[in-house]
């Protein structure tokens, strides 16, 4: 019997109702929720999630490149039953700084230049969120993305070290120091990159400028340090030169406070007193970047 009138029933089920406009009476979650949404959207965007396939390629590739050496080191350590990992946790990011530079140079402009270029910014500010919400969400998202990129290989190293049954206490301490170091690095690098990227709506300029500031400054500083080392061997001069590039700043801070061995020529990093200056400069740069971003977007308005 049920088969007799299938068409009539189907027609009943598939009838289209024009329900007209429906008002929204549900909750409106306000500023904090909007800020969180912008944060998660930007963080996902930094790895190309929720964007086109093309924009996933570079960040994912760099993530793999970043983690591959750690996997190899772990494999070697486990296979050869080494006493310690071939590289310190704190050294890893310094060694891989070119990859980090490339990542941040590609993702910082992606995060902010698009909104400026396509004039989407006014749409944000015509909603409950304010300048500070936008800047904090974008800054936090990029810093988190960079932290994921730099902390993931450290995690690989740590897990590998435990698998290789290396000394637990020593490894944990090193891992913790490494995490503090890359957290500081993430904040510093993303702050500087965002300020540069937010200055221009052109993505290409942003990428070039970020690479220039991060890697050329490092190249210049380490070259001058090497020359100074060869010429005079004045350790203090070498240390103070290190203040002028983001990479050497992080290197200096972790040498002074996080038990890292410096990559400065001559191997003599900053002392504790000099380290305080390094730390203050790093914190100053982070705060300064935030301030400049706030100023940049206060003017953006509608």
């Amino acid at each position, binding site marked *: 019997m049920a088969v007799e009138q299938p068409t009539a029933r189907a027609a009943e089920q598939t009838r289209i109702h024009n329900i*007209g*406009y*429906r*008002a*929204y009476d*549900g*909750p*409106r*979650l*306000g*500023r904090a*929720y*909007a800020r969180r*949404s*912008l944060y998660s*959207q930007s963080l996902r965007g930094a790895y190309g999630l*929720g*964007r*086109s396939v093309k*924009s996933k390629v570079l960040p994912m590739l760099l993530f793999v490149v970043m983690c591959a050496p750690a996997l190899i080191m772990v494999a070697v350590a486990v296979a050869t039953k080494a006493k310690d990992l071939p590289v310190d946790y704190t050294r890893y990011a310094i060694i891989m700084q070119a990859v980090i530079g490339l990542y941040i140079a590609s993702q910082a402009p992606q995060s902010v230049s*698009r*909104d400026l270029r*396509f*004039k*989407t910014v*006014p*749409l*944000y*500010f*015509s*909603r*409950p*969120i*304010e300048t500070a919400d936008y800047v904090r969400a974008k800054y936090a998202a990029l810093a988190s993305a960079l932290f994921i990129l730099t902390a993931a290989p450290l995690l690989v190293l740590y897990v590998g070290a435990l698998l290789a049954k290396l000394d637990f206490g020593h490894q944990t301490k090193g891992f913790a120091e490494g995490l503090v170091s890359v957290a500081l690095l993430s904040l510093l690098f993303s702050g500087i990159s965002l300020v540069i990227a937010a200055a221009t709506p052109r993505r290409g300029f942003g990428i070039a400028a970020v690479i220039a500031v991060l890697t050329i400054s490092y190249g210049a500083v380490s070259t001058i340090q090497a020359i100074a080392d060869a010429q005079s061997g004045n350790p203090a001069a070498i240390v103070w030169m290190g203040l002028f590039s983001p990479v050497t700043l992080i290197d200096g801070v972790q040498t002074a406070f996080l038990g890292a061995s410096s990559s400065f020529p001559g191997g003599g990093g900053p002392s504790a007193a000099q380290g305080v200056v390094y730390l203050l400069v790093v914190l100053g740069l982070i705060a300064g970047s935030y301030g400049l971003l706030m100023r940049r977007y206060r003017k953006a*308005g*509608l």
Partner: protein
Amino acid sequence: MGTTPAGLTARLFDLRVTPTGPYDWRLTRRQLFGLTTAVVHVTTVDDVTVIATESLSKRFPRVTALDRLSVDVGPGVTGLVGANGAGKSTLIKILLGLSPATEGRAEVLGLDVATKGGAIRERVGYMPEHDCLPPDVSATEFVVHMARMSGLPPAAARERTADTLRHVGLYEERYRPIGGYSTGMKQRVKLAQALVHDPQLVFLDEPTNGLDPVGRDEMLGLIRRVYTDFGISVLVTSHLLGELERTCDHVVVVDGGKLLRSSSTRDFTQTTTTLAIEVTDTDEHPDGTRAVRDALLARGVSTHDGSGLPGAGHILLLTAEGEQTYDLIRDVVADLGLGLVRMEQRRHHIAEVFKDSDDQRKEAVGHGG
């Protein structure tokens, strides 16, 4: 129109006095829209003022964008007309609470713009004049994101996005990247992002910019529906008075930051129904335009050649007195054996209508008899 919400609005509007009390938040938009419950509240008429400004001024170092502007706007579709640089966009910025006024005060939905900017922006939608859409995401993704920025939970944001895009007339194409859209479709996405959080009021800044005549008419129809079907009050800016008089219940004209005129649309239509006609020439009538003018004059209708306006010399302007004017033109042109190239309601540029006074224009265009 008599019993429609627009009629109600107009009635309320005429009674309206300067607002003194805060907006009654128990009054939902649906009630404002004209259901019976609203009538109870309407006894205190100031409850229904959507926007109120009081000698609002905005001065920049070199220009005065707004000069002691006092205007009240009720529910419905309100047109804000002014030439470029008349202060329209500045006014919207102030009303959104994004730019402090130099002096004076303003309220939107009963909330003070100086202190309650956040609350206002939660209840208000904004469609900017310029392009504001990223080309590499789909309309759906973009509008969902904007809905969340307005505080809608993820599930509600998706549902409202689907609804709103359908209402503005975007169907399958909403899954394609915005970069491939036509100007008309982009304008619809811009409108959708302003409506997605179901605001009580939307500011539409030059929504017909860059559209062809058909797209313009569709957009104007859509704007009309935003109020009649969705119950959302609209403040729409334009530099063309003609297109607003067909869409709006009320028109506010600003010039140089000053209020020039604020009145219901009916007052405008009486003075601005001007027809422009253009005819062909034939061997019999080498100057067709002149022939029509003489024929019309013989029937007691004087015309104007529109000197000083674009197309002068080829067109005739006359005031439409009603249906019979159209018939008269048709008959005159047919009798002369000419071809009627166009006959259209003249879209007035604001400067043209308000050059000095209405009288001057009437004199220029000329009345029958």
